[in-house]
């Protein structure tokens, strides 16, 4: 009897106590084009906006920063250095560990690899105008590191520098590589502009998620990949028109907000036909529902997922309703994958899409750091970035980055 009681007690404790486990996710930022869509002028390349600003520079032939598909360190009499800076806005705060991963490749000539140092950069802050004569100073340097093996990933624990940049003890001016020698020696890495997206630089985050944070899925049907057109913070690669860039509905109290278009690709070919259902990203309770055509939100619904986490979905084609047409009311409970409404373009919207807010106790500000740990379909919210195709003149022409959903409609 006592044994049975003890077993039941321990099982109950296991069910009630939250599992304080760590998660590890990769963040692989996309590059912004160098020109803007609406007039072909220069795309703003503010180092605090561009997700990953990376390039290489040489003391002899390319004395101004070059931003192509590679990052070079070494030299043959001359010296090549690589410069890298991540925009940290919206990324996990105070993670347990951050690892920088770079994919190495062979230069395809007689050169060999070379040990190199990594330096945390100080002033002046560098940008597109960086030249060999204006290189920033180093705050601290580490190395010499073992050279990469071409074809393999090379990684370094980035945590101390990340922490310094986050807490402001050192301004985030990025890092630079310094070759140990330059006797026909080169370390080659893929940059953020490398064509094959999975080989671009990665930040690997390990952190303990806050208590109660839901396991979100994309709010659109599984088996399809969906086009993201506006990122958290309101930026995107295509529309740098100052009128819309950044989009003020993705900033301020709504920083953690993503726009997902109706444009989609079905696994194995084809696309979703007919009206597109917007699905609950996680289990929750309806806390607001309403809207109209003469409202900037259009038709919308807001869900509370517990522990302060909320999501809101805007611009439905019609008032929010279940798959069977039953309108939603405050207090209704929904399961992950339940239909909330039909994707539309009501209100201040020019094309069919869903605008998804992530809130913590009613706010989605950049200072609501609990939202920096939100993972949706295995990716941080910050990872839902846009990428654009460019024409022969380098002018972006369309968004091309689709994200795969695993949210199976319940058919509610």
């Amino acid at each position, binding site marked *: 009897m*006592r*044994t049975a009681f*003890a*077993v039941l007690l*321990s*099982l109950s404790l*296991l069910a009630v106590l939250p*599992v304080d*486990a760590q*998660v590890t996710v*990769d963040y692989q930022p996309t590059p912004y084009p160098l020109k803007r869509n609406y007039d072909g002028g220069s795309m703003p390349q503010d180092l605090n906006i561009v997700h990953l600003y990376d390039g290489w520079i040489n003391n002899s032939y390319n004395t101004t920063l070059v931003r192509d598909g590679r990052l070079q360190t070494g030299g043959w009499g001359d010296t090549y250095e690589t410069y890298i800076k991540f925009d940290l806005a919206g990324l996990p705060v105070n993670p347990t560990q951050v690892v920088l991963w770079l994919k190495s490749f062979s230069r395809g000539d007689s050169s060999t690899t070379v040990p190199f140092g990594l330096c945390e950069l100080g002033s002046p802050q560098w940008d597109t105008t960086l030249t060999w004569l204006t290189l920033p100073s180093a705050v601290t340097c580490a190395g010499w590191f073992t050279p990469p093996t071409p074809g393999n990933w090379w990684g370094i624990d980035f945590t101390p520098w990340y922490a310094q940049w986050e807490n402001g003890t050192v301004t985030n001016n990025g890092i630079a590589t310094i070759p140990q020698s330059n006797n026909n020696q080169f370390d080659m890495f893929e940059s953020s502009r490398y064509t094959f*997206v999975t080989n671009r630089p990665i930040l690997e985050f390990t952190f303990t998620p806050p208590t109660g944070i839901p*396991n979100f899925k994309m709010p659109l049907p599984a088996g399809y*990949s969906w*086009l993201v*057109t*506006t990122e958290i913070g309101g930026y995107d690669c295509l*529309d740098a028109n100052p*009128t*819309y860039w950044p*989009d*003020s*509905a993705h900033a301020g109290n*709504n920083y953690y907000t993503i726009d997902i*278009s*109706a*444009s989609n690709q079905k696994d194995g070919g084809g*696309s979703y036909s007919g009206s597109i259902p917007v699905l609950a990203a996680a289990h929750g309770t309806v806390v607001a529902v309403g809207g*109209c*055509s*003469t*409202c*900037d*939100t*259009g*038709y919308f619904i807001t869900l509370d997922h517990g522990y302060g986490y909320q999501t809101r979905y805007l611009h439905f*084609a*019609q008032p929010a309703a279940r798959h069977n047409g039953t309108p939603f009311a405050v207090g209704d409970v929904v399961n992950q994958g339940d239909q909330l409404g039909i994707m*539309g*373009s*009501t*209100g*201040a919207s*020019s*094309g*069919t*899409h869903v605008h998804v807010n992530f809130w913590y106790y009613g706010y989605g500000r950049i200072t609501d750091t609990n939202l920096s740990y939100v993972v*949706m*379909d*295995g*990716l941080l919210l910050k990872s839902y970035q846009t990428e654009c195709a460019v024409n022969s003149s380098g002018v972006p022409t*369309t*968004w*091309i*980055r*689709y*994200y*795969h*959903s*695993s949210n199976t409609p319940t058919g509610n």
Partner: protein
Amino acid sequence: MSKKLTILIVVAIILIAAVLAGWKLHFSDNQQTTIVQTATTTTESDMLTDTQQNNESLTGTVTSTTNGQFIYRNDKIGIQFVFPAGWHIGSDSLNNGTLQLFNYDERMPRKGFSQGMNKIEADINTHNVYFNTEYPEKASSTKQITVAGQKSVQEDLELATGLKIRAYFIPMPSQPDLYFGIAVYGDPSNFYVLDNLVQSLSWVK
């Protein structure tokens, strides 16, 4: 059963549960979303075909006039108006939601309204003012105007994003507590289309 054995059983259960929880976490971590990157495969003409197909499910009716314009009529709501060539009805659920007209393909991914691009959107509601809770308002003005015999409100506003909107709120003669709200978004040089549409409006019940 001895006390020692009881403790051993409890510890074993906790260990098994912890291993299972760890496995579940590891498993879920590996379910990272796949990113697909490719040029858009849907063409503008594909989308227009879809839009034409959508028109088959209109709750109102659309007929063409001899001068190339179109008449929209919704007997359930009791409303009729004229809209010009170059516009199409993208969605018609005025009986439960919205009626939308576009002079572009609304299903293509886009952001904002380029030059010449406009959307007209209508609903039946209880308010006679445009609700902007999301975007701060940069400027707005209203004026009284008579539409189809009803004392109505015309509102012009510009949101902080620069988006310009003109809206009309027209009391429904059959239901005085309700308004036929209709707004045009986008290029202000085409706002006259809404002005003309509103002037053509008539009640059909």
